[in-house]
């Protein structure tokens, strides 16, 4: 009898001792590939499913080894010394990253087997146990690599590691149904209540996302898993940062999710990812946008709270420097 080869996943990064991706101390696995393409995305390198090359100017020592090594001749050196990647020619084979002595050429997205990845993730078991933490699958959209994601969740459950899935919700009901029994904590993004706006912001309307939220909420109430449901809304300037949106999302949560959610967090936009877009050769329409003001975050949180009186609403992230004094919530993770 032949066995199916073990599924492999394309993983962008593993971040250990993450304190921002669920309860306790966590190791977060960033999957590559996303089912949405949000204009504000803080992890643009996670959107495309295939491996990509990026060049880190500050690490480059100008040795030119990559230029000669590229089998596609996709690399050239500009007059100012910058390495230019012709994205049309580049196949993401990683040869340049292999030869680069200074790790300036970086292959974004590496292949992992389930067992190798799980071996890496269990290394912080002691810290998971002392903190009530575990492993979070994030991305990108982890569920997009469905088989691998499911196999990894199962493996972690077998090794007695608590799991969290951080999802945008844009996946089939079947896929979500498969995954949920292996998820201890579901981190669920609700970005925009208006379907047209949602499509404009993310490339997709929110029909599936809202339906899956209802599905997850029902699961949580009726089944052993997920045990915890955290909702998250990115507060993006001139996009999701309207009171109308928060009211609409709040009404949806109250009316359709019952009391399933355990908390709802508003995550302030941050602009630290400008360099990432540059490195990937992408324009970023949000490059010029500034951080929200603290007062705005507080107002939006109050609006949200008014719609869901029984649910704990909080906000997190960096706010504009001038009004930061005295603020308690000062750190952010790209939502």
């Amino acid at each position, binding site marked *: 009898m032949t066995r199916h080869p073990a599924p492999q996943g394309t993983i962008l*990064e*593993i*971040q*250990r*001792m993450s*304190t*921002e991706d669920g309860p*306790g*101390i966590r190791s977060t696995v*960033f999957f590559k590939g996303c089912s949405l393409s949000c204009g504000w995305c*803080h*992890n643009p390198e996670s959107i495309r499913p295939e491996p990509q090359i990026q060049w880190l100017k500050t*690490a480059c*020592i100008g*040795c030119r*080894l990559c230029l000669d090594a590229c089998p596609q001749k996709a690399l050239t050196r500009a007059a100012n010394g910058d390495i230019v990647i012709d994205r049309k020619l580049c196949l993401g084979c990683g040869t340049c990253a292999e030869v680069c*002595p*200074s*790790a300036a050429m970086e292959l974004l997205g590496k292949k992992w087997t389930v067992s190798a990845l799980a071996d890496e993730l269990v*290394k*912080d078991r*002691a*810290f998971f*146990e*002392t*903190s*009530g*933490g575990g492993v979070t699958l994030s991305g990108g959209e982890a569920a997009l690599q469905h088989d691998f994601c499911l196999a990894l969740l199962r493996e972690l459950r077998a090794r007695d590691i608590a799991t969290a899935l951080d999802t945008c919700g844009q996946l089939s009901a079947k896929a979500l149904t498969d995954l949920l029994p292996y998820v201890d904590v579901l981190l669920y993004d609700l970005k925009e209540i208006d379907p047209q706006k949602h499509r404009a912001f993310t490339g997709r309307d929110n029909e599936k996302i809202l339906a899956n939220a209802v599905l997850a909420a029902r699961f949580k109430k009726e089944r052993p898993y997920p045990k915890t449901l955290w909702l998250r809304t990115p507060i993006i300037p001139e996009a999701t940062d309207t009171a109308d949106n928060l009211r609409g999302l709040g009404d949806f949560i109250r009316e359709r999710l019952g009391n399933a959610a355990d908390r709802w967090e508003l995550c302030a936009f*941050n602009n*630290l*990812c400008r360099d990432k877009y540059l490195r990937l050769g992408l324009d970023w329409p949000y490059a010029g946008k500034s951080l929200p003001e603290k007062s705005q975050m507080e107002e939006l949180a109050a609006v949200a709270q008014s719609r869901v009186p029984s649910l704990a609403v909080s906000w997190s*992230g*960096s706010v504009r420097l001038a009004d*930061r004094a005295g603020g*308690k*919530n*000062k*750190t*952010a*993770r*790209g939502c």
Partner: protein
Amino acid sequence: MNMVLTPEHTMKQPGPLSDRIRWLRDYYFRGTERAWNNEFTAWTTGTPWDVIYNELTFYIVPETYPLLATLGASYLQAARPVALAPDFWNWSLSERRAWFVRETIVNYVPQEILPGDLIAGARFNIQTSLCFTEAESQQWTRQVKGKNGARSKMKWFHDHGYGNAGATSGHLIPGHERALALGWKGIYADLMSVYNALKPQERAGAKGAQLRAMMTAATMARDLAGKYRLLCEKLAAAEPSAARRAELQTMAANLSRVPWEPAATFWEAVQALWFNHMLVMTDENYPGAGVSLGRIDQYLYPYYEKSLRDGMPREWAKEILKCFWIHANTAYDAMIRNGNQGITAGFGQLVTLSGLGAGGEDMTNALTYVLLEVIDEMSPILEPKPNVRLHRQSPDALLDKIVAMIASSQGAPFLLNFDERSMAGMMREARLAGLSHLITEGNVHEYAPVGCLENTMVGNDRSGTVDNNINLLKAVELALTGGRDLLPFTDPMTGKTEPIRQDGPRTPDAASLKTWEDFWQAYAVQTRCIIEKCANLYETSEAIRARFFPTPYLSCLVKGCAEKGLDVTQGGAEISFTTLEAVTFATTVDSLLAVRYLVFDRRICTLPELVAALQANWRGYEVLQAQAKNRAPKYGRDDDAADALARQVMELWCGETWRHKTRSTNRQFRPGMLSWNYWAGDGYILAASADGRMRGQFLSNAICPSNGADIHGPTANTNSVGKVLGGKAPDGGDWLDYINFLPNGASHTITFNPSILADPAHRDKFKAFLRGYAQNGGTALQINLLDPDMLRDAQAHPQDYRHLLVRITGYNAYFTTVGRELQNEVIERVSHRKF
């Protein structure tokens, strides 16, 4: 995916403080502007051959090498004569010394009490004559300064990048609990009964002399207390304020009893403790480095509890302790005219709080929290340096307090020790050194750290915790060259370049090392050699100290000395190790990993090419250097393959260390990792290394990963550290399932972004990290919480940041007073960055 760094330009402010304490604290920080200070005064027998400065004790401080001759000469020049007892020159050296120190501090050094102070005992820093006869003086001079003397050997060792070694004062925990309980009266009586039990010929010999010296020393605290009592009475008589008059009267009453009689109240106990502690520094002519106080929340607790019952307000206990805190800081006045930092920075009169008890129970008590409040309210201030012992069952309330203090300070105002791993190391040293009757499962919890984090037993243990500092990296250099320095040494003073010699064993040259195993073998041979060289160098100064520099007062406070009739400098302590502290651990491991990766695994270059690159300081080999830096594996990332080599390195050098004992005093060498500031300074001495480091760049610090190497964050860093210390053995370690190859302990610093303590939820995560550290990590942890913007601002405006404390290896320092390079280094390692 990114944590946002948020600058927080807030300085920890002291307080709340009473007017009394605020005045004393502000006064202290006026430094050289003060009318009163505790700088060294020098005292001579008046002979033309007198020697005053025991330079051996500074051989582990390379910054002082250019000053040794000057300091010795200037103390002599400034010294005032002390009228000698008529039969002074008929006594043994230790008796002369005991008498001279007592005579000086009691009858020559002035006694003063600062306004409002509740603790007597102000000036204690003195440089006294070594009390030599002419013949002794000649011998000393020849053995120290002669052509092949201790000084020139020490300089050769340091100049050639091996490290340093020297018999150093301080660095132990005297038996304070016993001294408080018995008083000096009881100690004196014990000495007398040992002396009386001696056979006549013993009495006439060295043993008798030593005990007589100790009995003389045992009256020093009594006589000085008598002087201070008179002063208190005089001040009280002239004092207009009734409240202050009453304080002075109580102080006089205290001093009429302690430290001669057993302490009866908390105030008496703290007064006695200060006297007993301060006079160690007097006796050793050494201002405080590593003269540690042990578990003060444990042995002061009965006095605290009794006085509370008798009506002492809790705040008053804090007021008394805060005066003790001020006094401890005046140790720094010793060389105050050289600046209040410089070579006198980072002393480490360590106090220990909390920790395990006999039955595995937690020993945190009400006094622990009182002391934490004192530390919090006095911070930022350097001394006494606190170390909090944590273990797996440490109570949440303690962790909450600790985390709150870390959050409000610029970093932890204390070090954290971890009991299970530390006790495993103590049990291991007992087994390996045949001391299982002295360090047992029943008493190992009584251990306490010295100086920063160097674990020892208490009251019967001097383990020379800073005496030997070896650069493990030197063995990699010698393995690459067949035992010859990679670069010739040029004396910066004379400009003369020495020819390269065959200093190490003649292992095969680079071209002949064909496999990784060949290379490892050469490294092992060279490691054996450098450790032997270090032990031999140490022997030189250990023998001189044992012969010429008795400290009979200190010997009274260390169990074993009276019983053996041996001074503590002669190996009198029941437990008498000397510790070899390995420096450059991660640089060494990373260099070996790079050799294996570049030469043997990937065949990117040959070994001779790598040697050429290092000789050229990587110039012209930039691609190879980048590969070494960025592509070769590194220790500190929880990479099992890399950490396995790190553990191999650890087991090798520890094994070599255990092979040595001092010949003159029979002290066993034991391993540890402290590395003080050598990893910075010696980076300019050691040639470029295979890990990609250029000459002049810093080496790695203690057990920490190389700067910037810990790209997988604090948990991975922690796991690597725990693994190389021995990890855990499921079938039984040295303590529970823990193994610890380094009984001395290992300095580990992790810098966190302040966001980790931003709110209660994050603080809980940080507490959980500490609990995880107790499971997986090392023996000691220092928490830095810094952000780079603040540090850059401090560089630009040092005047605004005079009190900004940072931790650089095992000691605190005021940021603005450390060198620019070290400042930059601290800034660089604030965030865990990729190369």
